[in-house]
């Protein structure tokens, strides 16, 4: 087990390094001149040349990569061409908003997935239900976002359509998650308002995830329900509910856990869209702004952050699976 975990972590570092190399190559590919970008349009040629030297742009590629790696380890992701701030501080500003949204979506997705899977598993072979699931899984996330906005905001007026809050001076700390900060500051109005704003984007984000996880969970549940030890448990007199919780879910969760890991990757892509649609001031919005303004440093910085997070989560998921089902580590 320990060996498995160690190897997994080593593999994780290797993959992260490969990612940084890919990102570095991408930076070198772009034709625009970072020196000129830093100095502005009417800087004389001599100043631009000096800046290129200062930025180390005349060194061989592998040396530039080493320099780049060093910068990364210090957390230096370069300067954003649009905000003219270090990308790192831009990311730090945008991160809490995305974190809050992701947490809300994840909680919703898991709850919805479990409910979906259980309902489906108990109902057995309801064709309308599974068709609805396939349909929900085929909808592009901007369609679901659009429909949510149109129905629940425009037509029904139940929830706001954008932004994190409508309070004029929201608390700015300590967690920077408005739902929690509102409670910590003794202003429940802030929390309620934040939850209202979270509702539609979190639901939009959670839907495709829950469908995918729910499907996997359901087929695993069906598989497990057929196993002998379930029959044994039933004959022992355990209630259906207890069987579900103690045996079925735990054994069926391995496949679902690995599906969750896969979904995280898609989640980041969906986050970009959802934040754009709902005007949510997080990393996704920052990235789509960067994309539209061709701000390469910002784009790659966020892609790198998302990527490393994804890789780490995948590694953790593998470790979690090994813990849940030791047979996995022996493969």
């Amino acid at each position, binding site marked *: 087990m320990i060996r498995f975990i160690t190897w997994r972590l080593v593999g994780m570092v290797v993959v992260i390094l490969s990612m940084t190399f890919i990102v570095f190559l991408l930076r070198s590919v772009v034709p625009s001149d970072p020196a000129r970008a830093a100095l502005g349009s009417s800087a004389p040629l001599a100043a631009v040349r000096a800046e290129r030297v200062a930025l180390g742009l005349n060194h061989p590629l592998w040396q530039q990569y080493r320099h780049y790696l060093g910068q990364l380890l210090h957390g230096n992701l370069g300067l954003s061409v649009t*905000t*003219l701030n270090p990308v790192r501080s831009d990311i730090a500003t945008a991160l809490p908003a995305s974190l809050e949204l992701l947490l809300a979506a994840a909680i919703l997705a898991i709850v919805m997935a479990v409910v979906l899977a259980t309902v489906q598993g108990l109902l057995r072979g309801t064709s309308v239900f599974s068709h609805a699931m396939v349909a929900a899984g085929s909808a592009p996330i901007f369609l679901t976002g659009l429909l949510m906005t149109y129905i629940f905001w*425009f037509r029904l007026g139940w929830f706001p359509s954008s932004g994190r809050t409508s309070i004029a001076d929201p608390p700015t700390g300590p967690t920077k998650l408005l739902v929690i900060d509102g409670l910590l500051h003794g202003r429940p109005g802030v929390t309620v308002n934040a939850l209202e704003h979270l509702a539609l984007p979190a639901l939009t984000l959670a839907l495709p995830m829950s469908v995918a996880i729910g499907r996997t969970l359901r087929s695993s549940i069906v598989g497990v329900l057929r196993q002998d030890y379930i029959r044994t448990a039933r004959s022992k007199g355990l209630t259906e509910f207890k069987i579900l919780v103690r045996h079925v879910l735990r054994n069926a969760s391995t496949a679902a856990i690995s599906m969750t890991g896969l979904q995280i990757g898609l989640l980041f892509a969906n986050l970009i869209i959802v934040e*754009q649609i709902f005007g949510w001031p997080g990393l996704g919005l920052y990235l789509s702004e960067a994309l539209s303004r061709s701000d390469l440093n910002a784009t790659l910085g966020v892609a790198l952050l998302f990527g490393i997070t994804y890789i780490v989560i995948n590694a953790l998921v593998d470790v979690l699976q090994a813990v849940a089902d030791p047979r996995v580590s022996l493969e």
Partner: protein
Amino acid sequence: MRTRKVFVAIAVALTAIATSCGSSGSGSGGGGSSGGSVGGADKVLRTAFNEDVGNIDPDNNFEVEGLGMIEAMYQGLLQYAPGTNHIEGLLAKSWTASADAKTFTFQLRTGVKFHDGSTMTSANVKQSFERRVHNQDFFTGYFLGDVKSIQTPSPSTITVTLNHSNYGFLDSLCSPWGPKVIGPQAFTPAHVDGKDASKTWLSKHEDGTGPYVLTTYDRGNEYSLRRFADYWGPKPYFNGYDIKIIPSLEQEILQLRAGQLDFVDQYPFQQLGQVPAPLKVLSWNTLGMELAIVNTHRITNQAERQKIAAAINPQSWISQAYSGYATPALSNYAKTMLTPTTPWTYPQLSSFKSVHVPALTVAYASDDISLQSQAADEIIAKLQAAGISASARVMPTAQFDNTAQAPAKAPDIMLVHFYPDDAFPGSLAYLVFQCGTPLNYLGYCNKQADTLFNAGFTNPSAAGRSQQFLQGAKLGFDAGSFLGLADLKDVIVYRPGLANLVTYPVLPWNFNYALATASS
């Protein structure tokens, strides 16, 4: 690419909803904290910049959004009278110019204090000006690039002598990017820091004479200005301005609607017809010029360029594309700068039916998306209708500047909006139309036009000058290289309660912070 329009999605949505259905859910409804007078009890106005300022050093910036801030902190010798291009004194009470426009003498105002408390004398003005003279690599160093000498015969008199005649010199002193009078704090040895020439200190601090002092400089987040107690001029109504940095235009609009901001610049034109009550729109004509620049190095055939021009002709579409805030250009100059006796006309498409034009790229800067994307769409559709296929290309602004170096690889058409330094017609020519100038993006060079421009710079007669600058620019227009598209108004959307928002043709995107008041 219209990703930015996504952000405005919410704005319009909110707009239409609040006014029609009234079912906007909790919190996103209109008004927000609109109770009480604008600016609140402490009379501080709140606004936001869509892009962070690069630099608040008055000698080393090409800010547009940040100009309101800079003009509030620093002042030059001269200014334009509100809403006009008429020169009047600011820190100079009066002035004289020699007939050959080489020597200029200014009588300075007395009793002017810098923000550090010291009193302004001609020595300070000389020190400030010489900073530009000796640092020609500064962005705006060229304003004083031809200075021969600066004399200070008395503490309230200063004389500037140029090497060559410059009939636009006084105008350049009225420019928002023109030479400002900087206080002694910036010139202490510690702050000058040798070769640094105060760049570092002045990028975060200021020592001006203006009505507002910089009290907060938190780059990337916010800036604050507060009233300068010892200001020599009339006391401004508002005690200060708080400026946040909000990179997302959509967020800015949201906050404006919710009452968290008092005014914003940069409202997308397509939505100006649906600005929700009670917000108001302030618009004015600037010296800015919306141009299409055609790549003469890639499209070498004159007939092809004529066909392109004929297809692009803004007469039929420009006003609608900008919701009525644009009028077809009369020449390659803004009408507030120069007006020809007869408007320039585009060629007729029918004359070029048989001319074949290869597929084109129409490019614009990523900073300019909300301004240019609609125009690009229309232009591409018009080209298509004329049988020319075209596609759009959004370029990072930094790439724009490299196009002149390799025009053969540059886009075929570039859509740009230029703000000249001042109202002197030559200021657009020396920025854009002349050979080898920095904003001559696609490297068009016409010696004949340059001769006319150069003559205009040294022509003592204003009428004669205007003729020469118009003629020189017309050559570029007739060659199909520079196509004036529109006189596009600048727009500010603000909450009701603001009054006296004074604007100037020379000042883009901003009103005069010191003159704004609250309406009773």
